[in-house]
């Protein structure tokens, strides 16, 4: 067995080669779909073990089995050599296995401390005992170097801070094994850095970490070993020190990652498709969310919107699609004033929308693929006659999307819920492209997707641009913005603080504008 020396920096890790958790030949099927087949993986004390794989490779199912959310059809899970029967997450927690989900399980109105001790009985059997609990939680937070204000309501915390609360929750419940499901997908770059530091500290203290992720850079940076899953099976486990990112990618998708497509450069900018002129808008509590926003998107260009999340990007998209009323200013689409026009009307004018949150805003999870395919175009003549839906046409259209966009599924009648995130996103992308839009608004179009799917989405966006579609791309990944955009607008506190040509922009400069250290004239 290869000794993992990189992590043996702390004396508390006495048994580096000790296997804490071992999953043996886990198989899990959902009806005809085999989500996991004979997956065997071990986790050593104090190591950071990355689990890589494309969407739908079976990572989530495997983690759910380890955390007692799903019961495997066969196979066993051993903790320090003892076989575990995990019937529920409660059993997992009792055995010292904690999980940080991608979607946090926190009560926004309760304080950090209250959230952390919820259900632990840490304060005492009958009374809340906040003071007693505080001492314990505080000591633990200090020990593991998790900095968070225990008295703030969780609802006021940033996403990164909420994630730290989740980690603390797991530790307070005695977790020695921590499973993190794509923890960096929701974080800003600064928060990612901080999380990685925290994870390294934890592993230094003997906590074993199973890290599910798509992002190879993170794996190469902090993981000691990496396991790759593909089509429900475990392809293999590598010592990170002995392998390269390229090799892991090849294992994941069976082909090397394409270098960012050499972009066909823009010939000439087309006509203005979308123009916002001094647009102001207010949020539900009357707070200003868009402040004198002016920008133009031309046909055949991608305007990237950069900014730390929550600085008005979502509201910008909502104003254009008619979901958020405009206080003052003009929104003009191909000569039509669309400020405060109803959403259906705006969509009919040729606006397509890839929402930020697929599950909440983009799909009806209880519908089939076919039904979701016509969610926006249900009124179109292609799908209905006199209000009666042509089911055959609907299915044919879905089949076409499945083929054209390589959506992995068991046919158009599969519930969309059963698809992986990447395949769900492909469906949304496909149905929006099929509407032949004049303007496409893409909010975080590659969030949570694997490398293969990301490449695919990028290629499609570039193709659309070259076909003359105006694209507004909102992303928190600067690499993505720089790779795709023709111009980049930076938003901060509801303002567009600068618009720069990509050829003249630098990641540094844009980053500084996002953080408010620099202001450029548009």
């Amino acid at each position: 067995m290869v000794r993992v020396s990189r992590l043996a920096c702390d004396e508390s890790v006495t048994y580096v080669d000790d296997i804490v958790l071992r999953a043996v030949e886990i198989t899990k099927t959902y009806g005809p779909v085999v989500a996991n087949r004979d997956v065997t993986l071990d986790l050593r004390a104090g190591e950071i073990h990355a689990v890589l794989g494309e969407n739908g490779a079976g990572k989530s199912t495997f983690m759910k089995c380890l955390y007692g959310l799903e019961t495997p059809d066969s196979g066993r899970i051993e903790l320090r050599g003892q076989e575990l029967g995990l019937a529920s997450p409660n059993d997992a927690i009792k055995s010292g296995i904690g999980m940080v989900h991608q979607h946090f399980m926190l009560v926004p109105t309760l304080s950090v401390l209250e959230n952390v001790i919820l259900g632990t009985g840490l304060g005492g059997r009958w009374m809340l005992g906040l003071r007693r609990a505080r001492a314990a939680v505080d000591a633990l937070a200090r020990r593991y170097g998790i900095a968070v204000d225990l008295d703030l309501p969780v609802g006021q915390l940033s996403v990164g801070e909420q994630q730290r609360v989740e980690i603390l929750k797991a530790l307070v419940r005695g977790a020695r094994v921590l499973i993190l499901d794509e923890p960096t997908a929701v974080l800003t770059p600064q928060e990612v850095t901080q999380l990685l530091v925290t994870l390294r500290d934890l592993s230094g203290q003997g906590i074993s970490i199973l890290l599910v992720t798509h992002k190879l850079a993170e794996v190469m940076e902090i993981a000691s070993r990496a396991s790759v899953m593909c089509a429900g099976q475990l392809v293999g486990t590598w010592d990170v020190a002995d392998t390269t990112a390229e090799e892991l990618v090849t294992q994941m998708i069976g082909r090397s990652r394409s270098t960012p497509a050499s972009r066909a450069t823009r010939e000439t900018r087309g006509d203005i498709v979308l123009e916002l002129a001094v647009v102001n808008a207010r949020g539900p509590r009357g707070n200003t969310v868009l402040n004198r926003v002016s920008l133009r998107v031309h046909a055949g260009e991608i305007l990237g919107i950069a900014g730390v999340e929550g600085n008005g990007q979502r509201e910008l998209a909502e104003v254009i699609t008619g979901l958020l009323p405009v206080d003052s200013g003009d929104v003009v689409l191909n000569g039509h004033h669309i400020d405060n026009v109803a959403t259906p009307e705006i969509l009919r004018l040729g606006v397509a929308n890839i929402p930020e949150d697929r599950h909440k805003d983009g799909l009806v999870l209880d519908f089939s693929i076919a039904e979701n395919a016509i969610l926006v175009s249900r009124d179109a003549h292609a799908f209905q006659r006199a209000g009666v839906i042509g089911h055959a046409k609907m299915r044919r259209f879905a089949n076409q999307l499945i083929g054209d966009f390589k959506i992995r599924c068991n046919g158009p009648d599969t519930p969309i819920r059963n698809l992986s995130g990447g395949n769900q996103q492909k469906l949304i992308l496909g149905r929006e492209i099929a509407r032949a839009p004049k303007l496409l608004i893409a909010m975080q179009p590659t969030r949570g997707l694997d490398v293969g799917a990301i490449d695919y989405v990028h290629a499609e966006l570039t193709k659309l641009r070259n076909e003359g579609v105006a694209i507004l791309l909102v992303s928190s990944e600067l690499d993505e913005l720089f790779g795709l955009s023709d111009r980049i607008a930076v938003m901060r506190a509801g303002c567009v603080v600068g618009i720069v040509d990509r050829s003249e922009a630098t990641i540094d400069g844009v980053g500084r504008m996002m953080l408010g250290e620099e202001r450029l004239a548009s």
Partner: protein
Amino acid sequence: MTADALKADAAVSVPIRDVLTGPLGIVVASFVVVGLALVPFGINPLEVYAAMLQGALGSPNAIAETLIYAAPILLTATAAIVCFRAGMWNVGADGQLYMGAIAALLVGYNAFGLSSVVLIPMMAVAAFAGGGAWGAIPGFLRTRYGANEVIVTIMMNFLATICATYLISGPLASGTTPITKPIAAEGFLPVLIDGTRLHANLLTALLVAVLTYLLLNHTVFGYEIRAVGQNPRAARVAGIPVKRIAFLSFVLSGGIAGLAGLGEVGGIHHAIPDQLSPGFGFTGIAVALLANLNPLWAIASALFLAVLNVGANSMQRVVGVPVALVWVIQGFILLSLLARGALKRR
């Protein structure tokens, strides 16, 4: 194409575990559990159930009475399904039934010298409009002001019965008995089987159930109702006018419940008596849940609950077990279904 779709729906295979925890399993289990509870009292549950079946299906007349009972609860169930599918609870089918009955009564009483061929359809339109208008109120309050439709519809049930009581004791009082003046004979619904009371509203109910099924599964409006019910946020982003769809669902739901009032007035009483509905609206909710919110399955589940309720009386007569036993079974089934729903969501 429609027939194909119906076939496709029926052909879906279900694992055995889902059958046992499904509506059918729950029904069987409820009978067993309630039956076992009778044993300590020296009562043979099989005898009880046999008497119940005998009372509900033992003679042509019994069958007719069962079908008569099934019609209104199939309509109120379909009404409940429309609202459920749009993500709302319509607990006001009883009130909407009353308003439909009142509207049908007013048309049928005045009659305008019309023949049956014209008068009965007019009464049907009136019943639908009366129930629909009564459903529009909670629909409006919900979509405009966010008022809880459960509370509003429950309150409006009381208002509707009070309206009926007013007619009975006021403008349309018929003398000593607590019943309104009758409608014109031209407004009597045709009897389907001579010698029984079985009237044509059973056909209305079946037609409405089938049409509602087609509406929900094969039309854009039905698609929008389901989308709004399953994920109103995504529906809104996709350009579905969520509030309008929710409002229209409530109107449609109320109208369908109103048609149940047509049957009671035009087919049974030919007037509005005190206590027009023995809780048809609430039984309808049980029917809807038992049918998994599918209007076609509601036909079967309405028949089943009709057997239960009609059979209850003869069961009481023959074996001396009180009618309330049926309510216990019904409650058992309903609670199990709700518990199953809640457990599934976990």
